[in-house]
């Protein structure tokens, strides 16, 4: 058998008390697509950072094409033919495609010769791999799918034989993701080796040849993709059986709790982010807003929650108008029964430097329950926090622990406990399971369904289409700030994908 493209032998890495990678052994065969799947914090990104020279392993060996090597920094990795496509693109927005591709490998102090050479080489690469991009288009004018293509071109331009993609589909619509997979197949057929890091089981099944499952820093299994199933992989990831499908009964919608009429929102630069949006959410139903990140969902829910100012339109909570001029007091909206789980847990929903119990009252710190005159009633707050910790199974169960030291899933549970336990009439939830491990996802989804069944109106925003489809009773699709369609929960995924991509915009709006 040929030498494997990558062979990891006993890679071990600790960050203080965290054992990020435990004695990892992995073989990635040449000319294959190898998936690495695992929950957040399972050690996937650390492992790839070691491969790309960002970190050094404490022990263990990396062999590239059979040769033991030391990868001291990303330059060494590039010299070995390893290319990395990061989850967050490393592109200069104002530069053109060509300028971005040659950034760092200009070849000479004067750009003149370099540019024409780079242009020719880029042409060749585009042709060879069918990666069409206009070399003179500024990055900021390209859709994300094409920006990602530029990242791939950058790696190829530097002579990458091994391409590592870290969560590449997080920012893509389903059609864009399918296109990416076709590109990967094409690259594979040309003999490139591809490592695909993801937490989405579906993608693994769709595109990889082999898959390694990571859990708590260790590789717990490696399988041939065709010989495994989604259920087996999920169980390996979590370490126990998980319910992939959300179990829920029929919705029994009541009266309208939240009503949004012709809402238009601009950002600070004056760009229209929400464009004439109208919809209602009734008691006892979950309305999901599907859309690719950045299409106005964030602005929409922030405006309803009183954090952002609208240009025009009306929002009614229980038939009463909400102040959307930007002068609204989110505290007053809370009193009126509007709870908000924000998308940005790290900066908005929580103060990471606070101890857990301090975050358990954020936004409700005016409640006399937690106060003794102007003083905080620390005993009452901690007792309350302990109750929530128990009910929501927040681990570790220590209200004095700094919030930053909780895992993503447990941080989200802190926010959910705070917002749900106030028994709100309307619950707005943004990205309920972003950065949350599979085990916690199950729990969070159950709680959201329980809220619905208790007669609450739930407005759900998520970039995970699967999540929207499995939780929502009605689905609204947002594209470029407009609500371009409404579908039932059993809507066809392909159709939703097209709506999210803005295709058939006109027909869908009717």
């Amino acid at each position, binding site marked *: 058998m040929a030498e494997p493209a990558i062979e990891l032998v006993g890679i071990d890495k600790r*960050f203080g008390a965290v054992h990020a990678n435990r004695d990892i052994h992995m073989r990635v065969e040449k000319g294959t697509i190898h998936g690495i799947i695992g929950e957040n914090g399972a050690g996937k990104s650390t492992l790839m950072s070691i491969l790309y020279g960002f970190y050094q392993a404490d022990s263990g060996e990396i062999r590239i094409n059979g040769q033991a090597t030391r990868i001291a920094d990303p330059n060494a990795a590039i010299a070995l033919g390893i290319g990395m496509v990061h989850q967050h693109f490393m592109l200069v927005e104002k530069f053109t495609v060509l300028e971005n591709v040659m950034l760092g490998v200009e070849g000479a102090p004067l750009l003149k010769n370099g540019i024409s050479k780079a242009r020719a080489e880029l042409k060749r690469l585009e042709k060879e791999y069918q990666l069409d991009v206009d070399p003179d288009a500024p990055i900021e004018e390209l859709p994300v799918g094409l920006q990602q293509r530029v990242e791939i071109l950058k790696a190829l331009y530097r002579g990458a034989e091994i391409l590592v993609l870290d969560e590449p589909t997080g920012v893509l619509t389903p059609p864009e993701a399918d296109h990416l997979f076709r590109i990967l197949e094409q690259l594979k057929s040309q003999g490139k080796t591809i490592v695909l890091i993801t937490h989405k089981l579906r993608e693994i099944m769709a595109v990889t040849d082999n898959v390694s499952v990571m859990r708590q820093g260790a590789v717990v299994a490696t399988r041939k993709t065709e010989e495994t199933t989604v259920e087996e992989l999920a169980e390996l990831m979590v370490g126990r059986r998980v319910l992939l499908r959300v179990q829920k009964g029929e919705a029994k919608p009541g009266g309208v709790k939240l009503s949004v009429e012709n809402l238009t929102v601009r950002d600070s630069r004056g760009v229209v982010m929400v464009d004439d949006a109208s919809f209602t959410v009734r008691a006892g139903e979950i309305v999901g807003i599907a859309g690719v990140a950045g299409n106005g969902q964030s602005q929409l829910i922030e405006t309803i929650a009183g954090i952002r100012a609208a240009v025009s339109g009306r929002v009614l909570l229980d038939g009463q108008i909400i102040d959307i001029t930007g002068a609204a007091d989110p505290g007053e909206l809370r009193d009126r029964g509007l709870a908000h789980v924000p998308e940005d847990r790290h900066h*908005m929903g929580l103060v990471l430097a606070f101890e857990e119990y301090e975050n358990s009252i954020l936004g409700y710190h*005016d409640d006399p329950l937690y106060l003794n005159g102007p003083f905080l009633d620390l005993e009452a707050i901690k007792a309350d926090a302990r109750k929530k910790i128990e009910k929501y199974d927040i681990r570790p169960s220590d209200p004095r622990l700094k919030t930053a030291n909780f895992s993503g899933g447990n941080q989200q549970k802190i926010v959910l406990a705070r917002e749900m336990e106030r028994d709100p009439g309307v619950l707005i939830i943004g990205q309920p399971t972003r950065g949350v491990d599979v085990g916690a996802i199950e729990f969070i989804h159950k709680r959201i369904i329980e809220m619905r069944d208790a007669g609450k109106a739930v407005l759900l925003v998520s970039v995970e289409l699967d999540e929207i489809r499995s939780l929502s009773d009605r689905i609204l699709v947002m594209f470029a700030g407009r609500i371009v369609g409404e579908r039932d929960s059993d809507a066809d995924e392909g159709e939703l994908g097209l709506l999210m991509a803005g295709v058939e915009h006109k027909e869908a709006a009717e």
Partner: protein
Amino acid sequence: MSQPFAKLPAWADYGLLPLINLIVAFLVAGLVVLLVGESPIDAAVLMVKGAFGSGDGVGYTLYYATNFIFTGLCVAVAFHCGLFNIGGEGQAYIGGLGVSLVGLWLGNFLPWWLTFPLAILASALVGALWALIPAWLQAKRGSHVVITTIMFNFIAASIMVYVLVGVLKPAGSQAPETRVFAEGGQLPGLGWLLDLVGLSMRSAPLNVSFLLALVAAFLVWVLIWRTKLGYEIRTMGFSPKAARYAGISELRIIIITMMISGALAGMMALNPIMGAQHRMQLDFVAGAGFVGIAVALMGRSHPAGIVLAAILFGMLYQGGAEIAFDMPNISRDMIVIIQGLVILFAGALEHMFRPSLQRIFYRLGRAKNRTAAAAIAGGNQ
């Protein structure tokens, strides 16, 4: 993702790290002393003796420390809100107006224990109002407080020159200062406190405002960690977005915090004016507002740390004066250099040794784990 370094235990973060910074600062300062041909050891002995060796030495050290506690608290309170108030100097200077007003007027017919609370109120109020303008500009217009408070230091200095020379100077006097306050405008010394520990203070100006500074430090602790307002201030300081989400008004919190900060700086004026000189002189703040920044940094914005750091800087001021007096080669300016080095290492380069220290702790932790594992393995045999 995880931090690449282990978190330090609290005692190392708040005790060991400042100590290392301090030792390095003194080593470098020792080199400077060596360079001008004096013995660093002798200088160190002189400094410690000068600062703590006699009743008067201690009295002066704590007198200076009093100033730095107030200005350090001023910087720290604003810092908890994410604001960098560099205007302590000007707020303290202007605060002197409040103190002088009470001292010049009420001091004539009220006893000190009645003028004192009134002077506290007046100085705090004037300091707070002086901080209100930059606070308003920050909250309403987004003008950065760092810039505006620096500018307000200069405005305060000019106003005070005008007021002292043009308004408050007694007719016929050549000195830019007020007349001496009547007895009711003079704060009693704390000689009795030093008597308790067997030291006698003759000429040092330590006075009851030192006790006020300690009370203020305690109240700041209560404010920041035990009140709803403090909770809101800290939320704003850590994350303005979270504050907005929680319904905390940015305008209100910035203004209140800056006014508390300014009030603390203003109260510093009590110490030199009513406590020591019994009159207001030109430039009585003498840089204490800026030292407060270093004190707050070194004290990690915690009142207990600030009191300790303030005493350290009090020692540098008092002990430094003794060195300058006894060592002919070391001038007053050399002392400023040494103080500057301490500020540099303890304040500006605060985190220089942190990564190495973290690495050491990480190694130690690993070695410990290994021995523990070996012990277990050994036990199994």
